[in-house]
């Protein structure tokens, strides 16, 4: 019996080996079928477009996104605004401004559709489909009320078809639609006209069946939905097979009726124009485009040149990377960037190629403006803080000054991230203000390892002193030798009073004042003079200085308001603050940065205690409870925002300081509010750009966010299997779902 048991064991082992070797796939590409295999890091939640249009994860947008088309689109490399379903961009001739007409109190826009565009089931894409998608569907859903329907559908619908902007959409003829808007907003261009188009024939009965019942609509199995994009779900084309095996893979098959197939695109030719052309069926299009900075000229032919795009689902990055290196997949869809170790893995396999691209996002730190000394507001939970004096602003500036972004990103992060000073990412080159910088950014340990820390500390201390901060034991920084002694016990200043100052008039200083600050309207340049000392206004129109002893009056060169500060008593000592940042496991980079910032701040006597915290807890504390002192998080802004940075309003406008809103720090600056509103209402892009540039300057010095850094997107693909027409692109190939419509298999 005993021997038999070993025999059985041997048989089992033999079975396993046989199993392994018979099912072992030889290293090589499948013959016959042209399959483009990609790796994904998470499963889909649904294949029903209706759910996705409400809240899409990045993975769903990769798989389901390619099925839909819209009126307009942005070119892949230079992000030009070009027509897709529409025949041409309805710009006012000679400008980059939409040709909006006023009609009965509404702004209208007429869009002509291309002819010959077909759904994957062979029927034509007509104005009916457009009107249905943009207006009828929500109206049906809302029981006849468009606004109600959009609200009920929620998510992406509300974003692109905002009823406060969009009034109605009408069909003029089979290939002509008219949009009516209630007023101008930048959202017309980048939201309403980007709306996905669904087939009316397919969806209308389904919408009628589920009026007002979103769960029913979203619960439908809609795998046979016809597509007008390059890809369709296998089922909609009656191709055998399963489009989505939960937890394992998802598949798209090429749409045989794809309109753009075979079209050659030149994003910017020698004549400075965007062109499309194709011989059969004939198609050509030309459009003037601006010459803004961008990568090399991109010329390519639109595919798809593959029969299928398959998305293999992995549970973690490591196995996905290994699969790429082993050649089980051709491209890894990894929007999170690649750490050096992953790159090191790629380097072990010469057939894997990588490309680094800028990503559109930011990592930042912010403070609770409702608490002293970050702002000077009361400590109530929901109270909005109004920036009545400049203590908070100076305090933030001093912390900003202490942070050495260049050093951390270059050395510790090894360039997987780059320093960020503005609230707009440099990836968004048209809107990015490259002159924006942080206070004392010129000192960095990267180039001046001995002196920079002392210089930064010295500057930060001076900023704090200029609004009357004192210490139990002040920090000492010897700029000459670089010696630094940490301070302890920061004490809040006490506001003695304020006074309105006429331009150039002397304002008397109350007794006991040790520092004086001033504020002038935004955009005004002014100087504050106190005896021999002077201070220039910054971009936010604020200035402050430590008052030389014996000065009786100060002068402000423009009309504004002057504040006086005296030293605080022991009771005003700043309590120890908690600084919550994502824990090392969630994001080691931010955790490391957090610990470093904590250390730098402590050196300046700022009593901050770092608390690495789980991501979800941070989110709850910040956005849902608003119970925090400092925090650090990041925003990934996606490519859709590569148009105007409309998100700025969400982050910094007073309107969004409520619980659950994005302006969780409670930043409320009426002047910034005004700028944000003006920006969103500006039709002229160049004027809007000017406003955004100014906003970036103001926000950089007023620092509602202390922006830290942004990461690099790394694409990795099997060079022996696939060729892409271009790889240099903001947000990388990942940003266009792996470019399955452009890729060619070797």
């Amino acid at each position, binding site marked *: 019996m005993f021997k038999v048991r070993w025999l059985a064991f041997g048989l089992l082992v033999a079975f396993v080996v046989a199993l392994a*070797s018979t099912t072992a796939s030889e290293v090589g590409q499948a013959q*016959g079928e042209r399959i483009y295999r990609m790796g994904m890091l998470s499963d889909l939640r649904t294949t029903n477009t209706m759910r996705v249009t409400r809240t899409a994860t990045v993975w769903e947008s990769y798989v389901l996104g390619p099925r839909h088309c819209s009126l307009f689109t942005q070119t892949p490399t230079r992000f030009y605004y070009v027509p897709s379903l529409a025949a041409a961009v309805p710009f006012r001739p000679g400008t980059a401004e939409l040709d909006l007409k006023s009609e009965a109190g509404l702004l209208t826009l007429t869009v002509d559709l291309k002819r010959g565009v077909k759904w994957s089931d062979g029927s034509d894409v007509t104005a009916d489909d457009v009107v249905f998608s943009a207006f009828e569907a929500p109206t049906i859903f809302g029981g006849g009320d468009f606004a109600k329907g959009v609200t009920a559908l929620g998510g992406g619908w509300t974003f692109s078809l905002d009823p406060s902007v969009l009034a109605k959409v009408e069909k003029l003829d089979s290939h002509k639609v008219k949009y009516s808007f209630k007023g101008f907003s930048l959202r017309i261009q980048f939201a309403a006209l980007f709306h996905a188009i669904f087939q009316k024939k397919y969806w209308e009965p389904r919408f009628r069946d589920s009026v007002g019942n979103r769960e029913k609509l979203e619960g439908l199995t809609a795998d046979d939905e016809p597509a007008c994009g390059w890809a369709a779900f296998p089922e909609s084309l009656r191709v055998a097979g399963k489009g*989505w095996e939960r937890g394992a893979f998802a598949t798209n098959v090429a749409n045989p009726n794809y309109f753009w197939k075979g079209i050659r695109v030149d994003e910017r030719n020698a004549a400075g124009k965007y062109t499309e052309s194709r011989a059969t069926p004939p198609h050509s299009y030309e459009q003037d485009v601006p010459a803004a900075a961008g990568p090399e000229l991109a010329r390519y032919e639109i595919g798809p040149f593959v029969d299928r795009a398959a998305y293999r689902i*992995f*549970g*973690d990055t490591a196995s996905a990377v290994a699969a790429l290196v082993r050649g*089980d997949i051709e491209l890894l869809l990894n929007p999170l960037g690649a750490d050096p170790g992953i790159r090191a893995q790629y380097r072990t396999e010469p057939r894997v190629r990588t490309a680094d691209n800028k990503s559109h996002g930011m990592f930042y730190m912010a403070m609770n403006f409702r608490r002293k000394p970050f702002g000077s507001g009361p400590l109530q939970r929901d109270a909005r803080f109004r920036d009545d004096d400049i203590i908070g602003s100076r305090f933030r500036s001093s912390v900003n000054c202490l942070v050495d972004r260049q050093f951390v990103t270059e050395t510790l992060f090894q360039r997987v991230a780059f320093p960020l000073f503005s609230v707009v990412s440099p990836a968004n080159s048209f809107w990015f203000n490259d002159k924006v910088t942080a206070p004392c950014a010129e000192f960095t340990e990267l180039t001046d390892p001995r002196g920079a820390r002392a210089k930064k500390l010295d500057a930060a201390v001076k900023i704090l002193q200029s609004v009357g901060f004192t210490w139990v034991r002040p920090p000492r920084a010897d700029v000459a030798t670089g010696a630094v002694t940490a301070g302890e016990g920061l004490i809040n200043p006490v506001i003695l009073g304020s006074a309105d100052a006429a331009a150039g008039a002397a304002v008397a200083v109350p007794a006991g004042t040790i520092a004086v600050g001033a504020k002038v309207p935004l955009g005004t340049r002014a100087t504050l003079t106190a005896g021999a000392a002077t201070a220039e206004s910054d971009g936010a129109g604020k200035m402050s200085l430590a008052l030389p002893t014996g000065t009786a009056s100060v002068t402000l060169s423009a009309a504004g308001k002057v504040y006086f500060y005296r030293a605080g008593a022991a009771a005003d000592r700043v309590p120890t603050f908690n600084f919550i940042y994502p824990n090392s496991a969630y994001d080691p980079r931010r955790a490391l940065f957090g610990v470093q910032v904590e250390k730098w701040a402590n050196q300046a006597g700022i009593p901050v205690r770092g608390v690495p915290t789980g991501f979800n807890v941070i989110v709850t504390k910040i956005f849902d409870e608003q119970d925090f002192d400092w925090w650090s998080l990041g925003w990934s802004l996606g490519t859709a925002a590569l148009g105007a940075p409309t998100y700025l309003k969400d982050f910094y406008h007073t309107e969004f300081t409520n619980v659950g809103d994005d302006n969780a720090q409670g930043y409320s600056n009426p002047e910034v509010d005004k700028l944000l509103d003006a920006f969103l209402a500006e039709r002229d892009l160049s004027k809007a750009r000017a406003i955004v540039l100014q906003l970036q300057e103001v926000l950089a010095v007023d620092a509602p966010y202390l922006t830290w850094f942004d990461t690099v997107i790394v694409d990795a693909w099997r060079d022996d299997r696939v060729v892409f027409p271009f790889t240099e692109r903001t947000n990388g190939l990942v940003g266009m779902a792996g470019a399955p419509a452009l890729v060619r298999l070797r």
Partner: protein
Amino acid sequence: MRRYLFKRLVQIVVTLYLYLTLVFFILQAMPGDYSQIYIDNPQLTREAREQLIRDLGLDKPIEEQYFTYLRNFVIGQWGMSFAHGRPVWDIIVERFPRTALLFITATLIAFYLGFLLGKLIAWRRGRMIEYTSTVVGITFYTAFTPMLALLLVWIFAIQLTDWTGLKLFPIANFLDMDKWQLVNLGPHGSNVIFGYMLATLGALAAFIFAYWWLCHRFIHRPGVRFGALLGGYAAVFLLAGYLWVAVEPLAQCWPAFQKYGGRICNWQLAVDILHHMILPVTVVTLISFGGTMLLMRNSMLETIREDYIMAAKAKGLSEKTVRDDHAARNALLPVVTSFVLSLALAIDGGIITETLFSWPGMGLTLLNSVQEQDFPLAIAALVFTGVFALIAHLVADILYAYLDPRIRYE
């Protein structure tokens, strides 16, 4: 027997009730109440949030919430997954078969291996084999599981491929995408195959067990019995194989890519899943056999001091008979009881294994749902895991009753 089982059943129902209550109150006592997280989703508008509060019954007094919670558990309304937007129950039904197949296989192997080795090392106490097995067992038992899993992947999936040029083992997932792309098994997808496999496994196990018992009961000559056993097992395995290749719906075939001959049948899909199971099963087996082995050793050491073992020896029975039929048979009893404990351990190990092998079962679901803050799902997964462990508890009880006549005939 019936009374015993009834008693155990009542006890288990009480335990289940207490378990649910405990989970409920732990969640209530948490500083960041899970229902708060549920309704504090930043994507929700204020009105929607209030609606949700009403829908969830969170405006109701706690005792009412508690009873609703219990009722919902019983009727299978475990809530909607936040991240998936589907009923939690659906997701569990979808993920469970995958975990079940992996775990039942691994646990059976681990248990048998642990039993066998524990028996041997106790019998040969003080010899080299005891020290070696103890050291190996403890090493695997306490080894940092992720490290173990990664090392196995490295050895079998990477190094072996480098040496042989063949991809002998897959590194992740539970099926080969290329093979399955043209297969359309309906809405449940691969779970159909998992179902067939589980049914086959269950039927085989039941048959083997029953047949073994019958043979031992009615055939007394060792040689004849052994032949009958071997023949019966071979026959049933052949029968199972025949069912899979020749009898619908098990033997159904699907179109496939040319690479696979244009046709792929269910049995090939099952083999594909088995192929993907090898490494994860090995990992789970390695981490959990140690516990059984050490326990079996202790139990066996206690048993061989019993008088009936000496009596069995005195009867002139061969050493093997004494060891296997008397000592091991009795030593097995406490080990079966501890089976439940090792199960909890296996579930823990399973979370790690499933994550590292991208095996989308319950463990990975639990981890992902926590990372995505999908608390209805996370909690349901935890509760379900508990229920699963309870069921295993019951199975262990039945097995125990079968093994111990003192309980069977109580």
